[in-house]
C-alpha cells in the first residue's frame, strides 16, 4: 500500500526522534540510514567536547533540580 503524505511526515518525525534519542544516549541503535555508528569514536569525542563546552559556558547558575523534594 502506498504511503500517504501523512504517513511520510510521521515516519520522518519518528526518524528524527530516534536519531535524537541515539545522540542523547537513550538508545543504543541508530535509526536506519543514520551515518554515525557507536564505534565512531572521532564523532563521539567531538560530540562530548561540544556538550562539555556548553556545560562549561552555562554552568555556575546553581539552581536545584525541581523534582527533588520540595
Amino acid at each position, binding site marked *: 500500500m502506498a504511503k500517504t503524505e*501523512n504517513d511520510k511526515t510521521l515516519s520522518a518525525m519518528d526518524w528524527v526522534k530516534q536519531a535524537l534519542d541515539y545522540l542523547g544516549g*537513550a538508545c543504543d541503535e541508530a535509526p536506519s540510514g543514520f551515518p554515525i555508528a557507536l564505534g565512531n569514536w572521532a564523532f563521539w569525542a567531538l560530540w562530548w567536547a561540544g556538550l562539555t563546552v556548553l556545560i562549561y*559556558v552555562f554552568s555556575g547558575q546553581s539552581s536545584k533540580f525541581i523534582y527533588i523534594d520540595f
Partner: protein
Amino acid sequence: MIFNSWDYYLLFLIPASICFRLAGPRLRPWVVFASGSLFFVYFSYTQFGGLVGVACLAIFLWECFVSRFYRARSWICWLGIVQTVLFLAVFKYRNFLSGLVWPIPSENPLFWRHAFLPLGISFFTFEFIHYAADRYNDRTEAGSAGEYLAFILFFPTMVAGPIKRYQDFLPKLRAVSREWVTDWQRGVTSILVGLVKKFAVADVLTAYTNHLNRADISQAHRWILPLWLLAYGIKIYADFSAYSDIAIGSARLFGIRVPENFDWPYLRTNIAEFWRHWHMSLTSWLIDYIYIPLGGSRAGTGRVYANILVTMLLSGIWHGAGMNFLVWGLLHGVMLVVRRAWRQLRPLGPEPPAPATVFGSWLLTFVCVNLAWAFFCMDVDTAIFFFRRLIIG
C-alpha cells in the same frame, strides 16, 4: 544540587561504578549498599537535614529488617506499607495536614519548626511499597538482604528516580552487563546531555520563570504572562528529564539499565498519552498500586472516573504538600476523565485522523498541560490571580 556537583562524580559515581564492575557477583550488592549508604550520609549531612538527616539511614535498615518477614498474603506486608506511608506522612505532610486544622503555626501544637525531608523520601517510599505489595501478591522473589539493600540504596536512582521494580533490578544485579565500552559510552553521553539540558535550558529559563509571583504578574503586560508559563513548562521538562538522563546514564556506568522516564511527552496528542510518556515510572507505579487496586477500568463508568480522580489527586499531593498540588492533580484528573468520556462518546474510526485533527489534538493537549503548570509553580491564590490577569486584564 547533587547531580550537578563534582562531589557526585568524583567521590561516588566513578569510584563506585568501577568497584562494582570489578567486584565478584557476591560482593556486588554490598558495593552498592556501601556506596549508597555513604552517598546518603554525605549528601544528607551537607544538604538534607544535617546529622538528623544522616540518622534517617536507619529507615533503610529498618525497612530491610522488616522486609525479611514479608510473605505472600502476610499481614506483615501491610505493616510494611503502613509504616512507609507513616514515614512519608510524618516527614512530608505533618505541617501541611496539621495546618489544615491549625492554620497559624504558632497555634499549631503539631507544627514542626525544623522540618526536613530525608533524602529521596518521596521516591524510596514508592519502592518500599512496591516491594511489600508485590511480596504480598507473590509477584516477586524475596532475594537476599544484601540484594534488597542494594535495590533500595542504589544511589543513581535513590533521590528522584526513575522508580525501579525489584523484579527488573534483581536479574541485572545478578548478571551485570559485560559490555563495559558500550555502557560507558552510552552512560557518559546520557549524563552530558542531561547536564546540557539542565544548565543550558532549564537554568537559563529560570530568569523568566522567576517572574511567576504576584508582584511581577500584577505589573506585567498580559501578553507576556503565557510566555512565562510556557517557559515554566519547558523548564520543568528540561529539568526533570535532565535529572532522569543523568540517573539513567549513571546507572548505565554500573552496567545496570533502569527504566526510561520520558518519551517526548509534549508531542503527544491527548492527555492520557501525555501521562504515558511523562514521568513514566511514576505513571506505571500509580496505575499498578493505586488505580488498579481501586478497581481500575473494569468498574462502571462513574467508578472508573472516581478511580482516575483519586489517583490523580494522590499524584498531585505526592508532588508537594500544598493545596496547589492538589488542584494540579485534580485538574489532570478532570482532563483524563473528560478525554475518556469524549472517547466513549466519539470512538475512533478505522481511518487514521486527518492531519488537522492530529494537530488540533496536539495543540489542545499542549495548551492544557501548560496552563495546568500554573498550579504547580504558584500557590492557589497566585495562580488564580494569574488567570484573572490573563483573561480579564
